[in-house]
């Protein structure tokens, strides 16, 4: 069994990981469950498959045609953007040159911890995770964790400094910066730096870090160097902190692109969409300008004359 101090650390790590999953899921569900809204798409819409941004509205009597919707194109667009920040590259190259590596370092540090966790699982099941492993999986887990860790820590340190410098030197960026942003850059830098210190000074193969993760999974005691404790705590805090920042756009961006920007689903009579709209039209309106009959249903207000007497059924 772990000593109380180690156990507190292990539980903290587990809780923080569970927290981030719950927090992101909550945000995602919250956005998905918001009411259906009016159409507000912007072209080009990838699933329309038009090179110039055309839509099905270019077809005569479009409602009589079968819709050719290629969702793969939407998904491909999103993946490409997540992987390479294509939009930033095309429209804001200077910022991309700092922002992109910084974000890549996020991918890498998360990937590093995932592969360390898989490696730890391997250790539990008797897999040798090292260069000397006879098993290809053991070697792969070793090398991928090593590669993602080293690259992530180095790029993350440079990226965080780069972002800080960008915000401080670019007049437009500086104007819209706030203390939280600066705090974030410094905090992320410390997180990446702590990992770098672990690798350079204490654990060049991340074997100890993997052992620590094994102990987290099994809740067994382990002797830890302070550097590993510091990095694992900072990384857990980093995950928790992200949920309080705008970084959740990673998850919610997916929703907004599909639900608004590319949402060109026509409302067909008797469809689910029509049913959803009808539900919204049945709710009362509390807007109080003179031309709105406060307290009546949306469907009533929308057909009533703006000149009719205001009934003020305010709730």
């Amino acid at each position: 069994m772990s000593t109380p101090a180690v156990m507190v650390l292990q539980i903290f790590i587990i809780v923080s990981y569970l927290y981030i999953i719950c927090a992101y899921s909550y945000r995602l569900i919250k956005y998905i469950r918001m009411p259906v809204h009016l159409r507000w798409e912007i072209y080009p819409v990838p699933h329309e498959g038009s090179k110039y941004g055309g839509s099905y509205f270019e077809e005569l009597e479009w409602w009589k045609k079968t819709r050719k919707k290629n969702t793969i194109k939407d998904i491909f667009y999103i993946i490409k953007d997540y992987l390479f920040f294509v939009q930033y590259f095309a429209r804001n190259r200077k910022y991309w040159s700092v922002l992109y590596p910084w974000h890549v370092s996020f991918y890498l540090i998360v990937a590093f911890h995932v592969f360390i966790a898989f490696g730890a699982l391997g250790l539990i099941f008797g897999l040798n995770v090292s260069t000397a492993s006879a098993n290809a999986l053991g070697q792969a887990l070793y090398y991928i964790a090593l590669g993602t860790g080293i690259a992530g820590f180095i790029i993350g340190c440079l990226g965080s400094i780069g972002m800080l410098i960008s915000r401080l030197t670019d007049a437009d960026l500086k104007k819209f910066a706030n203390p939280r942003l600066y705090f974030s850059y410094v905090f992320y830098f410390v997180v990446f730096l702590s990992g770098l210190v672990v690798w350079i000074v204490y654990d060049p193969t991340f074997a100890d870090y993997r052992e620590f993760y094994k102990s987290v999974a099994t809740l067994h005691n382990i002797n830890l160097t302070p550097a590993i404790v510091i990095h694992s705590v900072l990384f857990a805090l980093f995950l928790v902190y992200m949920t309080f920042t705008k970084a959740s756009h990673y998850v919610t961006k997916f929703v907004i692109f599909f639900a608004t920007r590319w949402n060109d689903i026509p409302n067909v009579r008797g469809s689910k969409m029509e049913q959803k709209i009808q539900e919204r039209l049945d709710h009362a309106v509390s807007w109080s300008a003179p031309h709105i009959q406060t307290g009546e249903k949306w469907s009533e207000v929308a057909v009533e004359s703006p000149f009719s007497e205001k009934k003020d059924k305010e709730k």
Partner: protein
Amino acid sequence: MKQKTTEKITTAHLGKPCEQLVDIKAGDLMALPYPYDGTDKFSTIAQLKEEQRKRYEASLDGVLAVSIPKPASPAEEKALVDKFLSGLSKLLDKNDNWTFLQPLKFSLDYCARCQTCNEACPIFISSGRQEIYRPTYRSEVLRQIVDKYLHGQSKFSNWFLGNNVELNWTTISRLAELSYRCTLCRRCAQTCPVGIDNGLITHELRKLFSQELGIAAKELHETGTMLHLKAGSSTGMKPSAFLDIKKFMEEEIEEKTGKKIEIPVDKKGADILLIHNAGEYLSWPENPAAFAIIFDAAGLSWTLSSELVGYDGVNYGVWYDDVQFSRVAIKHAQIAKELKVNRIVVGECGHAHKALIVIADRVLTGDLNIPRESCMPLLEEIVSSGKLKLDPMKNNFPVTLHDPCNYVRLMGVVEPQRRILRKIAPQFREMTPHGVENYCCGGGSGFAIMQSMNFPSWRSVISGRMKLKQVLGAFQDVISPEVKKFVCAPCSNCKGQFRDLFNYYNVGATCNIDYTGLVDLIVNSMVDLKEPFLEVK
């Protein structure tokens, strides 16, 4: 005291009283190409009269679009602040604002403050990057107000999050004006890598002011949707006047083309109900006349409506008020239902396209959900079918195409109008950029019809500047006034903006550039026309 340098302005300044927050000088503005290069002649925004300044809140940029009277007492100031806050909470309520809650919440919550969108904004760029016109500026102000005054953050949190806007009468009245310094072209939203829509935030701000405080640009509300619903048209045109104009158009058609056409009105069971922007009947009757010539020649079963609201396809609600928007859209659908038509076709009016075909799609349910489409694919079908005998050489002059934001970027109708022009206009050339990346004419979101105070001057100097640059750019090789040139602007409001813009810059005399609709060019190329439909001198 006037704020001297725009660079120093931050969101905090919006609530700090001063004579005028921004003073735009001619030298600040984006340069124009030949023959408008090197001159500041057309670059000065008209000054308000002293009496107007005294009466209305004009301390944002010395321009009035909404014209909020200055408060008479501190109680009046407080009432405005309270009402704004109550409206703001309704804006974030799923029942009051189901219409746009999801994209609004996202846009408020997740802006990464990367400022990528700024370069996409024609107003920000044309104005010489005036801080207050930055697409992110008004959004950031609203975001801070939500955070600070609705979420009730602590003093530390407000400092940590940079919430430095003070909510007072000055902030709100300037914010109301500021919501009418964006044409809702949504180029910024198209550019945003994260999916933030600053255009939507502007739209929602206008909505808050209208639906809760009863504050809106007069031309959009009082003489816009209210007049539309009362008199039948935002132009004030009554059904009898519409029928007179219809008769006039028939006479004009006969005189110009030798064709005797009876324009069908209120024809029950017709295939198509054609809806025009009523501004066409008054300002450019040749446009609906050209539609009549084409539809007649193509042998279509169609009709116009003489019902109140039915002969005016505009829906100004789309720019500022969801309730008014729904009222007009439902009226259009009810008229189509009563006429028992198979479909509604929207004429050359961009916002009418977007309003009735796209946005109203989630307002019209049951038997009001009548198929609706753009006139562009229909016109393309007619031109391609060979039903009209066309001679492109009749249009042998330089023509460029303006893409109305509302049905190009925001609806994806991009190519039909181009395919037509390639067939009928041998000297057709594109602007840069074009298609879904076009620039707004500068009259979008109602600006083209807003004529009060010194707003038209601001519109010509600032919001239309980028479009003028594009037009001049497209015709640089034939810029001499000896060559007649046309901007094909298949949108009534855009045409209104081109009319004002070209008059302001004296483009006709200087460069011999005119504007016209697409159907006008089609009819001009018809072989069996007695005389040219367009004046080409």
